[in-house]
């Protein structure tokens, strides 16, 4: 283990302790902000499995995020709570099936075409919910009561309680991180990274690469569905924007900004983008200029700066040298 590696592990432990202690010292606003950051971190990690590890740049990842949210909205009775276990299982299974169907088609393309076709499928889903009366059409629909978690009559936690909800999301974000770390170190993980580096040679070594890419696409889509489900529970609301290209682009930016091909990078990207959005919006009016109102201009400048100064993303701040993979990537 190198010193840098040890530093990253130490920083991760400190970050985890701080996150666990957050509700003890932070106001409700910040606990909810960090709930959202952790949800977006799950979303960004799921996308990085495709972009950074398998080399498949998806520009339609919001499709799975939003679809899981819509499934929760559709199975929730109007003024009653849905079962957490049942609705979560439906949302995850639904996004997995959607990823299987879309993946089976889009993975026949590669490169720029892959970017375009993933975008096209996500936009088809967007307009399906936007232009029909399903779940309130373009207005979306509210979920008045959050899902209920009961085990044989006992309620281990209450999702209406923002602190409880924060811990549920934190636990799931950590679980996602550990799951993906484990998968990436497995035989399957070796295959998908091999596909990114040299898919042609993988085929000539005897790997049917399509089915590995498809499995990866389904895993990624399912985890994006988990994030979408959690976001829907938090905001109590779904609308077609959850499926749109704007969100697909934002999460792709988080991955690139934080550092592709790592798991901590995308989480850092989610943190940076959501915190800066609020920080920039809070900037004061100077003379006739309302700086906060033009926060997107500042965000754009920040992104340009990071891309120029840190080609490996924010995670590059923690790494002495560029990663081996980056140096030799053709």
């Amino acid at each position, binding site marked *: 283990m190198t010193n840098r590696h040890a530093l990253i592990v130490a920083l991760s432990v400190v970050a985890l302790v701080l996150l666990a202690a957050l509700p003890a010292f932070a106001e409700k606003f910040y606990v909810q902000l960090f709930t959202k950051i952790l949800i977006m971190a799950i979303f960004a990690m799921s996308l990085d499995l495709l972009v950074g590890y398998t080399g498949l740049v998806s520009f339609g990842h919001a499709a799975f995020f939003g679809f899981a949210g819509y499934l929760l909205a559709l199975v929730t009775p109007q003024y009653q709570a849905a079962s957490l276990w049942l609705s979560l299982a439906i949302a995850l299974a639904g996004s997995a099936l959607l990823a299987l169907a879309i993946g089976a088609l889009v993975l026949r393309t590669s490169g720029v075409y892959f970017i375009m076709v993933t975008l096209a499928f996500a936009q088809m889903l967007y307009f399906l919910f936007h232009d029909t009366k399903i779940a309130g059409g373009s207005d979306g629909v509210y979920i008045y009561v959050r899902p209920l978690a009961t085990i044989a009559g006992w309620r281990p936690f209450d999702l209406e309680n923002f602190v409880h909800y924060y811990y549920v999301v934190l636990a799931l974000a950590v679980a996602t991180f550990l799951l993906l770390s484990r998968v990436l170190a497995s035989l399957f993980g070796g295959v998908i990274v091999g596909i990114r580096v040299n898919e042609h040679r993988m085929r*000539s070594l005897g790997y049917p690469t399509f089915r590995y890419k498809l499995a990866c696409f389904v895993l990624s889509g399912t985890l994006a569905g988990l994030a979408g489900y959690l976001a829907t529970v938090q905001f109590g609301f779904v609308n077609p924007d959850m499926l749109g290209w704007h969100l697909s682009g934002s999460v792709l930016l988080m991955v690139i900004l934080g550092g592709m091909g790592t798991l901590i990078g995308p989480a850092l990207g989610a943190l940076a983008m959501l915190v800066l959005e609020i920080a920039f919006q809070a900037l004061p009016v100077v003379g006739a200029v309302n700086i906060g109102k033009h926060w997107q201009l500042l965000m754009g400048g920040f992104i340009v700066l990071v891309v120029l100064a840190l080609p490996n993303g924010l995670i590059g701040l923690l790494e002495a040298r560029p990663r081996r993979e980056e*140096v030799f990537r053709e």
Partner: protein
Amino acid sequence: MNEAVLVTEGLTRYFGGLAAVDGVSIACERGRVHAIIGPNGAGKSTLVNMLSGDLVPSSGRVTLRGADITGVAAHRISRLGIGRSYQKTNIFLPFTAFENCRLAAQSRLASSMRFFRPARAYRTLAEAAERALAAAGLDARGDMPAAALSHGEQRQLEIAMTLATEPEVLLLDEPLAGMGADESARMVELLRGLRASHAILLVEHDMDAVFSLADRLTVMVNGAVLAGGSAEEIRANPAVQEAYLGEA
């Protein structure tokens, strides 16, 4: 007479109107090296690409141990026991030499849809990778990133990876390309050692290596077979001298 393992009959591939390979019939036998020689553009690599499944033939047949494998996909061909190396080094540059070979050995598992157990916990894969590295003379280089190896070592790794898939037939596309004299000599020794246990199809421009290794030669010109025979027969063939050896 050894048994022919890999046989082609009238194998042809068109690119547009051009026949890059035109009616080639050859056979590879276990324990023998069958060399394909010919000037650039003769269709040698196209022939290898059809045998490895990288290209689908326009017509003709390929059989492996009597079974028709014409047009079968590359990953299936590999699993049937035909391994190939590439003219242009085609390895996983960011991975170590060991990881390259382990990934190659891993391809022999029925499936790599194994999501939880760490890859390094598979002892048999590690041993297979070490064996392949040793067979190719790279045992001291296992922990080096492939990108940091010398050109000759990368060529050896290319062979090591192919060996890690435990093929019965080896398709070697210019294994000596770009090598210095010492590296070439070592590679020739390596290939000589592989002959007994494999059927080898060798495409190579280095005539010294070809004549020292090959049991049988096929000379290709403009996609077609000009002549075939033992090294002595080819050397003595006036048409070959005129068309190919004379130029070289």
